[in-house]
């Protein structure tokens, strides 16, 4: 079909089960239980469909994907389908033997989340005692297997001042890449925004630290940095544009244009059990709703940046205006921009450190 882009990446949320309780978890507030998860065969069929559509990377994520005992079979199935397989893990639930089995069955890359640079901080944020130690042990095993390691550090007010140490830790653990991911305030993170929102000063300092480290570590470690858009001038090109580059499949098989899309309650999402994936991607109403630029209102429609940031985040537009077709309120051209910024600054000053942890 003309005009339908070829997707690059599939985020496969294999399960919502996870031993950690991170207060900024990107899973929805309403979690899917094990009994409703897709079967091994259903996932492998999805991987084959995705590869046939042109998807290159699959991100095996969760929850904690190691909570699924068939993770080794799923990894092999994804690799056999022709996909580059990336495991996004907390590190908890993987033994030395399981990691070796994953590597032997074709795993390409491990992305390990870290919550902090010491056990006390990290285990408090993740809500799981012993998590930090487990993660550091896994990083060592990944290095022993010779697999590439990315460290993913979600940053917020309670750990952003230790960004320098976070970068140092990633280097010491032999990471080829570090993702410095500022928290995205949807779902659980939105619920915990008073405990997480960084101050504008912290964000500015963080940006400088990353810029300096990138230069210093060129050829040693690549640093990806996602700026917190609440404090920016323009929105980020969320997902590289709605329904343009990537898609997400939830544990029960719902197909989403973005992992947070279910927060947009005016959209309905189809399931891989009911319709071929390629058809959902090309024609599914949730995908066609905001694909391209035709849906845009002004100021987006006449904006010279419209094919650079693709109108930003639909979820954020919905959260602030009740209409996902509005301009992303973090954009300085939105009439809600001042409200969003004022709220972020107020939340950062709230000084509340207690978390409402993610639970079923």
């Amino acid at each position: 079909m003309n005009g339908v882009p070829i997707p690059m990446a599939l985020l496969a949320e294999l399960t919502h089960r996870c031993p950690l309780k991170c207060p900024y978890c990107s899973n929805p507030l309403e979690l899917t239980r094990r009994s409703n998860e897709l079967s091994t065969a259903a996932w492998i069929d999805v991987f084959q469909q995705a590869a046939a559509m042109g998807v290159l990377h699959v991100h095996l994520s969760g929850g904690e994907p190691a909570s699924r005992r068939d993770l080794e079979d799923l990894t092999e199935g994804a690799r056999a389908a022709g996909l580059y397989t990336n495991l996004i893990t907390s590190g908890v639930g993987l033994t030395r033997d399981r990691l070796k089995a994953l590597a032997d069955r074709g795993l390409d890359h491990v992305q390990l989340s870290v919550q902090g640079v010491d056990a006390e901080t990290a285990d408090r944020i993740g809500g799981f005692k012993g998590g930090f130690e487990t993660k550091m042990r896994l990083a060592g095993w990944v290095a022993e297997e010779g697999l590439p390691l990315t460290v993913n550090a979600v940053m917020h007010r309670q750990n952003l001042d230790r960004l320098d140490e976070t970068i140092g830790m990633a280097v010491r653990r032999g990471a080829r890449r570090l993702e410095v991911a500022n928290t995205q305030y949807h779902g659980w993170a939105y619920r915990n925004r008073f405990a997480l929102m960084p101050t504008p000063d912290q964000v500015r300092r963080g940006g400088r630290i990353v810029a300096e480290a990138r230069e210093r570590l060129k050829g040693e470690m690549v640093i990806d940095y996602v700026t917190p858009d609440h404090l920016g001038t323009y929105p980020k090109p969320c997902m590289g544009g709605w329904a343009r580059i990537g898609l997400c499949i939830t544990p029960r098989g719902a197909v989403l244009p973005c992992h947070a899309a279910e927060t947009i309650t005016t959209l309905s999402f189809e399931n891989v059990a009911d319709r071929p994936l390629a058809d959902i991607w090309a024609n599914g109403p949730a995908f066609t709703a905001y694909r391209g630029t035709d849906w845009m209102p002004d100021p987006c429609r006449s904006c010279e940046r419209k094919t650079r940031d693709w109108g930003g985040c639909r979820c954020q537009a919905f959260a602030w205006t009740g209409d996902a077709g509005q301009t992303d309120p973090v954009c300085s051209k939105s009439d809600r921009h001042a409200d969003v910024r004022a709220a972020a600054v107020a939340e950062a000053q709230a000084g509340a450190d207690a978390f409402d942890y993610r639970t079923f």
Partner: protein
Amino acid sequence: MSVAAAITEEVTPYLPRGVRLHHCSVRAGWFLLAPERALKMDAIGVAILNAVDGTRSFGAIVDKLASDFKAPRERVAADAGKFLRDLADRRMVEVKS
């Protein structure tokens, strides 16, 4: 660790684990796949990467490409060197001596 290692004639470049050349039949093209990256490769990029087999030194790679494409050696050395240097900066190519 190949931190900022130069691509000299003597070193042997190689694709580290987790980086591989992949043919996408849907797009009818070659991609260099790496963590969170998929770089579209043109015919020259594919030719260079096919010569990078983990045993040839950079000098031998240049010899091979210059001969295969009947191109001036200095020109090939400069182009292939820059190509591999850029990938090494992104940790998508490493070198051993």
